[in-house]
């Protein structure tokens, strides 16, 4: 019987505080024969490296630029790390530079932190998410306070009384945002319209100045989400294109009014399958993905950052 996963946060006040808590977390894991993975900004990696000394040799370090590009990739890094040594427990530190995230990405990050409690519950992993309490604003520190059932304090873990039910958080964060009235809207009635939509997204994406790689990723993500809408949703199927704050949004809407599982596609199918990858793949491609439904239909919003 595998010990269930743990998901703990650390609100650190200083470099020294970070190094001693994160360092003891990793050392505890290594001593018990666990594998260790650290995903963090370069400055944190350096601190931890120095703190661990010779023990650092047994730890996998990944910069947050890699592990969180885009944010949901962190799930993939976690799953791949676990899959490399089945049956061996992992201790994992996961932190990214939250200060540079856009509002849409931060909403998605809240989902990501809450969903971990459900989708990784049965995994043999101890996850520590450090938050820079000395620098981050309180609304970002609230993510730590609401999505972790334990807090690392003084080398141990205390229960977190402010932990919020993950599914309730996810449902709260699935409100539908209607497209603005000045959005460009395409109607897609047949499967051949997917290619037409790709061409429009490509042309408009280039117009707003998106980098070619970003356009490639967005084109793939839109195809996946639109294909899902055509195969599993109800007509009419619409694609709205618009700018919102610092993001460019491709918004796929279909007529399906049934509630959407907020955990759909946050992890890939467990067994290879002919389908079921669309939403997972989209989250691996674009900056943020909103999914929700109401009486106006099912809505999936794909966000990419506007240049500049």
């Amino acid at each position, binding site marked *: 019987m595998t010990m269930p996963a743990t998901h703990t946060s650390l609100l650190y006040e200083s470099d020294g505080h970070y190094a001693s808590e994160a360092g003891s977390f990793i050392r505890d894991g290594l001593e018990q024969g666990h594998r260790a993975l650290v995903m963090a900004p370069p400055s944190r990696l350096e601190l931890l490296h120095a703190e661990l000394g010779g023990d650092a040799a047994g730890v996998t370090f990944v910069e947050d630029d890699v592990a969180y590009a885009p944010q949901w990739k962190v799930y*993939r890094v976690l*799953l*791949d790390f676990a899959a490399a040594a089945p049956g061996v427990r992992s201790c994992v530190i996961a932190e990214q530079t939250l200060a540079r995230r856009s509002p849409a990405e931060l909403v998605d990050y809240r989902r990501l932190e809450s969903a971990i409690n459900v989708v990784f519950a049965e995994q043999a992993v101890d996850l520590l998410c450090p938050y820079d309490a000395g620098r981050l604003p309180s609304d970002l520190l609230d993510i730590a306070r609401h999505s972790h059932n334990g807090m690392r304090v003084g080398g141990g873990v205390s229960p977190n009384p402010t932990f919020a039910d993950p599914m309730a958080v996810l449902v709260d964060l699935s409100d539908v945002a209607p497209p603005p009235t000045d959005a460009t809207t395409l109607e897609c009635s*047949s*499967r*051949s319209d*997917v*290619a037409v939509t*790709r061409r429009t997204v490509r042309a408009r994406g280039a117009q707003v100045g998106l980098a070619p790689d970003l356009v*490639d*990723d967005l*084109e*793939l993500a839109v*195809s*996946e989400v639109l*294909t899902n809408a*055509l*195969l599993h949703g109800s007509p009419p199927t619409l694609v709205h294109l618009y700018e919102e704050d610092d993001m460019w949004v491709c918004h796929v809407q279909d007529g399906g009014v049934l509630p959407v599982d907020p955990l759909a596609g946050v992890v*890939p199918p467990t067994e*290879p*399958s*002919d*389908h079921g*990858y*669309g939403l*997972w*793949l989209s989250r*691996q*491609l674009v900056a943020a993905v909103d999914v929700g439904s109401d009486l106006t239909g099912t809505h999936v919003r794909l966000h990419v950052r506007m240049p500049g």
Partner: protein
Amino acid sequence: MILGAHRVPADLGSLDPGTHLCALEHDATVLDRIAATFVGQGIAAGDQLLYVASEAQVDGLVRRLSEHLDTGHALATGQLLTSSFEDVYGSSRPEHLGTVADGFRLAAQQVQKRGFPRLRVAARMDDLAGMLGSVDDVVAWERMSTHLQRELQVSSVCLYDTSRLDTGEAATIAREHDGLAPAVDVFPIATFLAVDEPWGVRVTGEVDVSNRRLLHRLVLSRAAVTPRLRVDLDGVTFADAGTVARLRSIAAALPEGGQLVLARVPAVVRRILDATGLGHERLRLEP
């Protein structure tokens, strides 16, 4: 209005196997365009195509199609076959329509053996009435063809030059078909060509929910002949996760010793393989 015209889709790629179409035009260049549309879209969809026409008509079609696909290659692999009317139907009235039908059956049986999903035939019918003797015989012939094609799952377009027919005959002939074949200038978004050496498939263009079924049935047809095959993706400008997932499934279902090699894999397919973790020991990536 022709009975059964509902069987004709706007897009020939997804033509129901066994559909019996016709074209009735007094302008030979329109017939040329309809033939090129039917043959070009059929080849692009991965089927084997037989064009029954005069040498000059064949030359014209090859020239026209070469703007869109590697016609020389399709001729070399036998994905595009051409034949004269006499070679297929003979030059004199057959004793029995059944003899011709037997030849048809034989051709249809060869299709799967050569690694194609289905056979489609485009035939210039200019000499049929002359050979058979009367329009009544042509109608009997077409009626038999309809049944035979349904049975053999062979689609066709019968191309009639109406200037050679009497008033009313065109309508009589049309009634024996499922509908009229279109002439469209829009070429499909992807082309699926059979390759003999190394055995497999060459894909160009975009593969998505609208056409991935066509790729998969061609790959399956090739795999049924030789379970070691190479899918050349060099010309692929887009593919989606469903396309890649099904190629993996085909590889996973290959018999012992089988292998599906993805060659010249474009960035979009690598991205999908990487992000989905889809892989199998019988699915190999050629570096």
